[in-house]
């Protein structure tokens, strides 16, 4: 803002002494300018009696700026029955969310490219193995890498930490699963093989939440995804001439029994996280 409202203009506005036309332009500026709004808020407090009848329009103005329209994500969560406050908290810190989403997308895009132009099924295998990793990392990132930077303030607030963590986890999964599914359509492989990442994605996410109750989100995500990648890398194998499904099913992780086991793990981990909910509520590191 290069110009600001005069103090007496603000005073006149606060006490309702401005005509409709000038009040309109004052309001237009107030919508843009935090400094004048703050001045107005200050004045409004000191001139309480005179301001009464003006209360409503002032409140409306302050509302519009300081409670911006709920984002799509917030509205979606509210529609699911989440309270507006919790929805805002869940949708908060969007930068943290975007970083992992973009990173995960980049990896999958490379995998799709390799699958389309590269020889053999390496691209498809890469896709299926790496797609489950992103949401697990996403949980850690939605708190900031290394935990919520304001974590000490968060743990001493009444809102249960696990409730927020689970909600953010749902958001992470809801944003990742459709994206990965859309990209999977671009794979040369169709059907079951192109969906083998789905159950592992949920299992890794759920395991990360459970493990986070012991070691915090960042370490949990690192441990879970590293274990997954090592397991997959050492058990998946095949040759250039065998199919992607042969490569993957060389590993127990992608055989029906392994997938069933992962589904059980996903549920079990969720139970563990809920049973250990109070351990999210004390700080861990120094």
């Amino acid at each position, binding site marked *: 803002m290069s110009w600001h409202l005069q103090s007496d203009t603000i005073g006149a506005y606060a006490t309702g002494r401005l005509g409709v036309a000038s009040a309109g332009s004052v309001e237009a500026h107030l919508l843009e300018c935090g400094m004048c709004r703050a001045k107005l808020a*200050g004045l409004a407090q000191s001139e309480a009696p005179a301001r009464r009848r003006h209360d409503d329009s002032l409140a409306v103005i302050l509302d519009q700026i300081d409670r911006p329209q709920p984002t799509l994500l917030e509205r979606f969560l509210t529609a699911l029955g989440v309270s507006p*406050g919790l929805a805002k908290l869940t949708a908060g*810190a969007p930068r943290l969310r975007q970083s992992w989403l973009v990173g995960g997308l980049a990896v999958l895009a490379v995998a799709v490219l390799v699958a389309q132009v590269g020889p053999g099924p390496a691209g498809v295998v890469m896709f299926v193995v790496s797609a489950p990793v992103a949401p697990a990392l996403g949980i850690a990132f939605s708190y900031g890498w290394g935990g919520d930077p304001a*974590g*000490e303030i968060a743990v001493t607030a*009444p809102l249960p930490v696990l409730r927020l963590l689970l909600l953010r986890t749902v958001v992470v999964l809801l944003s990742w699963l459709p994206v990965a599914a859309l990209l999977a359509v671009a794979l040369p492989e169709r059907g079951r093989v192109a969906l083998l990442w789905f159950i592992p994605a949920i299992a890794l996410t759920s395991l990360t939440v459970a493990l986070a109750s012991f070691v915090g989100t960042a370490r949990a995500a690192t441990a879970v995804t590293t274990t997954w990648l090592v397991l997959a890398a050492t058990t998946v194998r095949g040759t250039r001439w065998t199919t992607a499904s042969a490569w993957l099913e060389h590993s127990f992780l992608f055989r029906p029994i392994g997938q069933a086991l992962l589904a059980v793990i996903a549920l079990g981990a969720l139970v563990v996280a809920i049973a250990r909910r*109070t351990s999210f509520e004390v700080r861990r590191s120094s």
Partner: protein
Amino acid sequence: MNATDTAVVARLAGVGKRFGRRAVLHGIDLTVRTGVTGLLGPNGAGKTTLLRILATALRPDAGELTVLGDDVLDPDGRYRIRQRIGYLPQQPGFHEWDTVYDFVNHVALLQEINDSRRRQSEILRVLDIMNMADCMHQHLRWLSGGQRHRVALAQALLGDPQLLLLDEPTVGLDPYERLRFRQVVSEVARKNAVVLSTHSTDDVAALCDEVVVLRLGRTAFTGCPAAMIAAADGHVWLSDAPGPRAATWWRAADGHYRHIGDPPPGADLAAPTLEDGYLHLVSRS
């Protein structure tokens, strides 16, 4: 409930904390009342650990602790405590990309101030107290150190907490900000309790009704500032030459040497200050 009971905000009995095998707090007994309690002590004495325990960020592993009438070890009690305290950590982290308003809003939501009208006026109230209302739409990462500090203080004031816990709140404040801070704390302490840690005996003299000196995880002193001054009675000496047997000595601005502890020959007894009292308490071996 009688009048003295209502003034008690927290009660610690034999509170201990260890990290691994290392004991950091030993058997702390303390009663926190309405007004300002100052925690003094050298670095590593356990001030931050004690404040974290009071804030329910850490669990004590020995002793008993009730805050605002609730037991910190009971999950429901902890929830009720958290609704009624405000906490400024020694190193509050920020969401750097957030604006001041968004950050305080985030904390207000964590504080379960769910009604949006009420939340908004509460945010404006605390930002106004800390003189930050005019930069509420700035991003945190562009703020100066002093401004960030004021934001951190503002979030601690949300919801008008009955117990306000401040870990080194005056570090890095300029004299004007420090004055403003003292006004805010005095205002809060008229009805509620404030516990703050500090390295400044000036803060204690200006603000505190009660002083607790921590040393190596134990309370070395609890009492009012006047009693802390009195603790050094008969231990402060002035002379023209340094006397190395004293626990501490330094050359004062007037050219005399001030000693705490054993006097050099021919020294005169001096009236102690609050700082002398503190130095006497922490330098005793």
